[in-house]
Every structure is written in C-alpha cells, then in structure tokens.
C-alpha cells in the first residue's frame, strides 16, 4: 500500500500534430505542480526541437554526450573501386567515384550505419564510427529539475535519446522521492512518441480545432490505445474555429475519453513565450492561465484521486 502511494506517476504530453501548444501547456503545469503538494520532476522528450528549457529559466547543472548511431567511412587509399559496397547498400548511401575524388565515398546523410558495406568490402577499406548524436542536460528550474536534450541537426536515434533523458529523470525521482514525472512529448506517432509514452500512467493530448488537428488527434488516440495508455484530452485555441472544437468533442466522445478542459486563444501565451516564463506565472489572471489551472485539477484527480 505504502509502496503504491509512493509510486512515480508519469504524465506524457502529446498531440499528433505539431505546434498545438504542448510546450506552453507543459510549462504552465510545471509551475502549478511546483506550487502543489506534489514533488515533480520534468523531461523534455521533443529532442529534435527542444523548447521547454527556453520558457522555464533552466540553468544546466550537468551536460553529457549522447553517443548513438554509426556511420560508415571509406579509407580512400584502400578503396579499389570494386563497387561491392554500392551493390549491397539499400539506402543509396554510397557515392560513386568522381574525377576529383576517384574512389567510393559514403553519403553521411543517407547512411543508416548498418555495416552491410563493411562486411562485404574485400579490401577492409570501410570502418564504422559511432557518432555523437547530441547532448543531454540536467537543469535546475524554479519549478524543479528538468532533464532535456539537444539532438544534433540531422542526427539519428531520437527515440534512444528520449529513453535516455526519461531514464535519468526516473533515477533522479527515485533518489529524491518524486511522485510525478511530466514528459513534454514530440509531435507525430512514431518512434520518439512511443519512447516518450513508454510506462506512462496518463497521456494529456493537446488538440487544436481544424481538419489537420482532428486528423492527427485521431491517429495519436489510436496509437496510445494500442499501448493501453489512459488518455485525457484538452483543446487549445478552442475559440478560433468553433465547428472544429465541436468535432473534437464528438471524436473524444466517440472514444469515450474525458475532456480535461478548453484553453481559449490568448495573446498571453505568445507574450509569455517572449517573456520566457510559463503563462501561469507571467499572466496568472489570464484566461489561458485559468484554463490550465482547471486542467491541472483534472490531472491530479485522475492520477492521484485528489485535487
């Protein structure tokens, strides 16, 4: 019983479509959680486009290299231009000899690091090198510890980096008796989203009215149901296109999911991003801040049976 009560609850913020307001809402929830009875810790799992640190006054205490993918490299002096590497590569990542560079080369952006070429090269002219794909950080914010990362441009393995920052946050939570992990998730429904949702006790979906928003909301709902993650839905910019808001409500109703609240279009949100603060702190009396407070209440009731 006691163990159960101390269990770390995981909330993941997702949307399917990008740019619906996940990060602004997460920042607001960070602020509210830090002022509650909860002892929270936070992760930004959108490692391709990590923005949560920008609005939470995050000061990095630690940074760590993230070694992930492999790339093949051909040693020009050893290459005899037999072309076997190009024959086996399924990614079109072997560039053919040119006048200036008369040997086979690897197109780094197309290479998957599978090593098929390495094993077939009769001259052993090809080696695999592990790449530094990014960096991850543990930062102090006024709201608690934030674990976040920057994947380098064009790097691979975003799912693995998401898993890394989440694991680090969980280790911190264990050592410090945290009871809530809020994960700001990436857009889409693929690999990094699945990594961000692993082990989640609840997903809060941030929907946006409109044909794109509802199409992508439907896909993320189906994805989470496949993995048995309980879902709450909230609607952001709920008043910009009311027929779209009604459509979201009927979709949510069709799936039998609870609606956690509606956030109106509110200039306080872009203004709070410019001020680099959560909207609940920057403009606590704004309509958006009040709506986020209501959503936070629903989250607490759902996860902890209180609020």
């Amino acid at each position, binding site marked *: 019983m006691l163990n159960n009560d101390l269990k770390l609850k995981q909330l993941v913020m997702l949307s*399917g*479509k*990008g*740019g*619906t307001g996940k990060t602004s809402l997460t920042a607001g929830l960070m602020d509210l959680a830090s002022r509650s009875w909860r002892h929270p810790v936070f992760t930004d799992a959108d490692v*391709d*486009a*990590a*923005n949560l640190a*920008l*609005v939470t006054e995050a000061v990095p205490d630690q940074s760590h290299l993230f070694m992930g993918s*492999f790339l093949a490299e051909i040693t020009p002096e050893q290459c005899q231009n037999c072309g076997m590497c190009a024959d*086996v590569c*399924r*990614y079109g990542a072997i560039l053919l000899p040119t006048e200036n560079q008369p040997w086979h080369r690897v197109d*780094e*952006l*197309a290479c*998957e690091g*599978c*090593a*098929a070429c390495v*094993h*077939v090269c009769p001259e052993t002219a090809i080696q695999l090198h592990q790449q530094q794909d990014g960096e991850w950080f543990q930062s102090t914010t006024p709201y608690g510890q934030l674990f976040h990362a920057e*994947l*380098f*441009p*064009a*790097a*691979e*393995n*975003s*799912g693995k980096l998401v898993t890394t920052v989440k694991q680090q946050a969980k280790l911190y939570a264990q050592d410090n008796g945290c009871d809530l992990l809020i994960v700001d998730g990436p*857009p*889409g*429904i*693929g*690999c990094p*989203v*699945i990594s961000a949702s692993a082990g989640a006790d609840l997903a809060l979906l941030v929907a*946006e*009215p*409109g*044909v*794109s928003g509802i*199409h*992508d909301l439907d*896909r993320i709902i*189906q994805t989470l149901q*496949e*993995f048995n993650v309980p879902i709450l839905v909230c609607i952001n*910019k709920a008043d*910009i*296109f009311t*027929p*779209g808001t009604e459509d979201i409500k009927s979709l949510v109703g069709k799936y039998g999911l609870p609606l956690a609240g509606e956030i109106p*279009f509110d200039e306080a949100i872009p203004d709070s*991003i*410019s001020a*680099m603060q959560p909207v609940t702190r920057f403009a606590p009396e704004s309509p958006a801040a009040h709506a986020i407070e209501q959503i936070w209440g629903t989250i607490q009731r759902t996860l902890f049976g209180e609020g």
Partner: protein
Amino acid sequence: MKIAVASGKGGTGKTMVATSLAATAAKDHPVRFLDCDVEAPNAHLFLNPTIERKEKAYIAVPKIDPAACTLCGRCVEVCTFHALAKLGTQILVFPQLCHGCGSCTLQCPVDAITEFPRPIGELFFGTTKENILFSMGELTISEPMPTPIIRQLKAHLSDEATLTILDSPPGASCSVVTTIHNADFLLLVTEPTAFGLHDLRQMLGIVEKTGTPAGVIINRAGVNYAPLEKLLEEQSIPVLMRIPYRNEIAAALASGQLLTESFPEYKPAFIHLLQDIDRLMGDV
C-alpha cells in the same frame, strides 16, 4: 526541380505553404506533390485529391529457416540495430527494430535467411482538381519507423513532372533528412518566437551539412523579431515571404481551405516565391 518545405518546429505552417505553392504552380507547370509527413499527413485535407491507387509500404525483414540454421550467431553479430538475438536453440527476430538493411541475409554462411516484406504503412496516389499529381505516405498505427515509407514514396519521383514539392515532417532528424535528401531547394517555414528560432537553427544546421540553397518564410509575422532577423542576416538566408497572423486565416485553414483559395491576394506572393526560388537556384 524539387522543393522541400520543412521547419524544425511543428505547426509553423509547412502544409499551408506547400499546398498553396503547389496549387499556384500547377497553373503553369506540371506539379507533383509528396506528403512525406507520414506520421501526421495533412496535405490531402487541403488539396482533396481523388485517390486512384494505393500501395503497401514495406520493410524487408529476415526470416530464419530453423532447419538450415546452425546457430553460428553471425547474423546477431552483424546486426547493428539489435534486431536479432540468439536465445537457447533459436534466433529471435524483433521486426520493429529491423531497418531492413539485409546484412544478416548477406552474411549468413549457410543461406538460412530469407526476407519477407512486412507492411508498415501505405502509399496513396491520386490527382487534384488543379492536376497536381498527389502522393502521400501513411505510417500504420503503432509502427515506429517512418523512414522506409518516405524512401518508398520518393522512389516514385522520377517522372515528367517538372516541379516536385515535398511536405516534410517536423523535427530535424531521420525522417526530415530522408525527406529533404537530394532536394534542390529548402523552403523553411518559421514563426517569430523563441521556439521558432531555436528549431530553425536546427534546420540551418542541416542546411550547413547539405549545402542545399534555402530560403525562409516567416509565418504569423507581426512586429519584427530581432533575434530571428539577425540570425538570417548573419547566415545570409533570404526571407522570401512574410505572412501576418490573422484570426481569419487561422479559421480558414482550420476549415480545410487553401490559403490562396480563401485569400486570393496571396496568389501573387506565391508566384513571386517561385520566381525568387528560380532566381536563387540560378545564382548557385
């Protein structure tokens, strides 16, 4: 010419730009449109193509013949994706980790491995009322890997169409790189906020690696956001269009209308955009 529309940050207006650009260009050129945002494809909601053909998207996954397998473990050793494991007297395959590279098949000393196509998504092909040759990929729910679908979609590129527009997924990693690989021009859509700026920097990092000529569209432009203007000036990236924020635009897009359809005053801007891209390509 292949123009890829990308952004780093999600929801900046990639699809809005790509669809209006395609519809405008289709008046004078044959246009092919590829929706490469296979996790959340939305362009069809604006272009309303008539879908004429579908095709499954596959990844080639190994199948091991237990009668032929000697359990030497070579396949496990060569798989850099950890999609194979030796457990007791069998080799286990984890299909969702497999990148379909074929290394295991090539390296098996007793030819015990064959590959079978595992469906992970679907491709759709059709035509719009503007005569745009439309295609899109869609990742199957709960499948993790979008890139093989994007590659399969792009394999249909070689045809008579003179202008190809690729609508990219958000982010700055694998699926974006696969989409913009070999594009002739990169159209980067951003918004004048700290978030937009941060994620645009990620995209400019890719531009630096590929050397692809690029230009920026600032969406929801209001008062000039100095840090963004400064970055673009420093990196000599031209601003090709500014689209101000208006509630009416947001509502029109939400209802599934093309920007150039509900606000025809933007048509000349997109014609200019094409001319500007042509000019920038000529400079290269």
